[in-house]
């Protein structure tokens, strides 16, 4: 049996194999996308429990959707679903989006020798990201942590590509100002 985590297996292959009854293929898709997707959901909702539900629901919809609606990569589909669900969630509940990105960024880890400096840096980065306007923060998460192209970001967020680029550029510029005193990172 081919390794489902192999980069040779395209999303389309995995979806097709899942539809044919191979649960391992779903596991492959899940492991390929769940980490960044969960981080994105956390950054939108500010609530890890709610983020879990959104990610689960996105995979449920992926499994149920007609094959004709999926392209070779399922990534834009998953992110669009999570974004729309988060938007509805935000509209229905009292949670204000973007007020707790620290929750999402505390979840990140890094290879630092000194745990103290890691903690301080995490807090500084999370604090700086929190100060960004919501759409700029979203552009940073999708670009840096999800690894999307600007084309893909534009598609998920529903804006022209130029807007996605400028949001990201403004965000990086603003982060540069906010993190000016962190020039000497370990």
């Amino acid at each position, binding site marked *: 049996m081919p390794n489902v985590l192999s980069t040779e297996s395209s999303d389309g292959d995995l979806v097709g194999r899942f539809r044919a009854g191979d649960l391992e293929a779903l596991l492959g898709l899940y492991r390929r996308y769940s980490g960044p997707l969960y981080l994105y959901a956390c950054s939108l909702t500010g609530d890890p429990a709610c983020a879990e539900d959104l990610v689960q629901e996105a995979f449920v919809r992926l499994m149920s959707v007609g094959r004709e609606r999926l392209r070779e990569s399922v990534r834009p589909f998953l992110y669009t679903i999570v974004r729309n669900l988060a938007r509805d969630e935000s509209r*229905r509940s009292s949670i204000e989006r973007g007020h707790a990105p620290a929750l999402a*960024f505390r979840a*990140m880890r890094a290879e630092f020798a000194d745990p103290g400096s890691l903690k301080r840096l995490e807090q500084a*980065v999370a604090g700086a990201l929190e100060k960004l306007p919501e759409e700029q923060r979203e552009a940073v998460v999708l670009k840096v942590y999800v690894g999307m192209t600007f084309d893909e970001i534009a598609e998920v967020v529903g804006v022209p590509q130029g807007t996605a680029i400028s949001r990201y550029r403004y965000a990086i510029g603003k982060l540069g100002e906010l993190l000016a005193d962190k020039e000497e990172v370990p």
Partner: protein
Amino acid sequence: MNPEDVERLLGRFEPAPPPERLEQNVLAEGEKLLRRESERAFGPTRRARETRRWGIAGVAAACLILSAVLWRVLVPRPGDPGGAPCQGANEFETHLDTAAAAGPPAFPTGAPSLETYAPLFRRADALKPLAEELRWQNIPWVTDLEEAQRLARTERRPLFLWVSSDDPLGRCCSCAAGLRVGPLSQEEAIRRISASFVPAAADKKALEKGNHKEFLRSLKRQNPQYHGIWIVSPEGKVLAGHDDRKGKGLEGWTREIIETLETGLKAFGPVEPRTVAPPDLFPHRGVGVQPGGSVTLAVYTRLMLKGGRDGPLAFDSLTLSMEEWVMLFPPRVAVGEEWGVPEALARKFCRILSPVSDPDFMPRPEHAKRAELRAAVASVEGGTATVRLSGRWETEHSTPDGKPLRGSASGEGVAVLDVRKKTMLSFLLVTTGVFGQPPEGRECGAVVEWTSTTP
């Protein structure tokens, strides 16, 4: 710090893996989906012999159903715009659904001039819930989870905990709405749930935001499912579960729910039969003015075909504040007095355009492209005034996965006022329209009603 350094710094972090239980939950959902697909794929083969045996009877039944459908499509109904008027008692009986009388509340017929509105009442009756669509209200639901847990501990019996993505007793996802008018409205399920369990109905989102977040997580860990039914011991141990997704028709689905009850009860052990009267779940819905002066209008929407029922009921409510309510009163009680209800209030009625129970598909005030509700005093006699209502709504929004949805509806209604007391006696609005993904859409309708006192 220059942009390259910022990008380098951000790149030194990476997303942490999500909790392990999420992977288990997703796989559990996948497994269920595959099982259902498999049952669908192999079902017809297993049934083939039976189908052959009953082939002739099946064809005859199909012909009968087809004739009934064609009759519904081709024969206009009294009360339809442009349709044939009622000709006599026989035709009246054919079209007026007497079972609808079981639905709350009945429109009062106190005002002398209300005979004029008979076609409107018939259209409302053709949309309102059938008695069997409301039987789930016969279960003695407890909507406060803490109270339900306390009862379960005191009475030493398991909880029948029904968790829906939204309000399980109002607008909720289609799975829960189907469960409500399906298995949970079947006599056997009602009897078993009421006799052996403490039935609790809860909104998943409310649980997650409140004090029961950890409890819900514990349930999900023990029996992974997104929402649905959990049979839970008073100590919080999950004894059985069902994810409330539609199974194999009403009969199969009901059987699955009953099997879940049996499994849960077997794991828990024998319990004393319980006799608790169902509470009034909606004391103010469609009836009376609340202490602060607000009112809650009863709303029913559903798909229609040629003016009749053609789909499951969406059970909904619309609450108006005292300030909004008085906007439906005439500035001056004189025949011919006309006024327009402010657009902000007319927009609140947009929800009646969606025949789908799931609030994700429901248009909200901000989705209105057009929202008009006008009123005119039609008569003043015998101390009461009748107000004729007319409205039109158009909405555009999208589904959670970005597909466009469009709705349009027009409606007529009547309100009756007590001129001396300056109070509303009753309110009825009936709309028909189209809702769905453009360019297609399905015919649908809604009834909004309220009365000052329980009939």
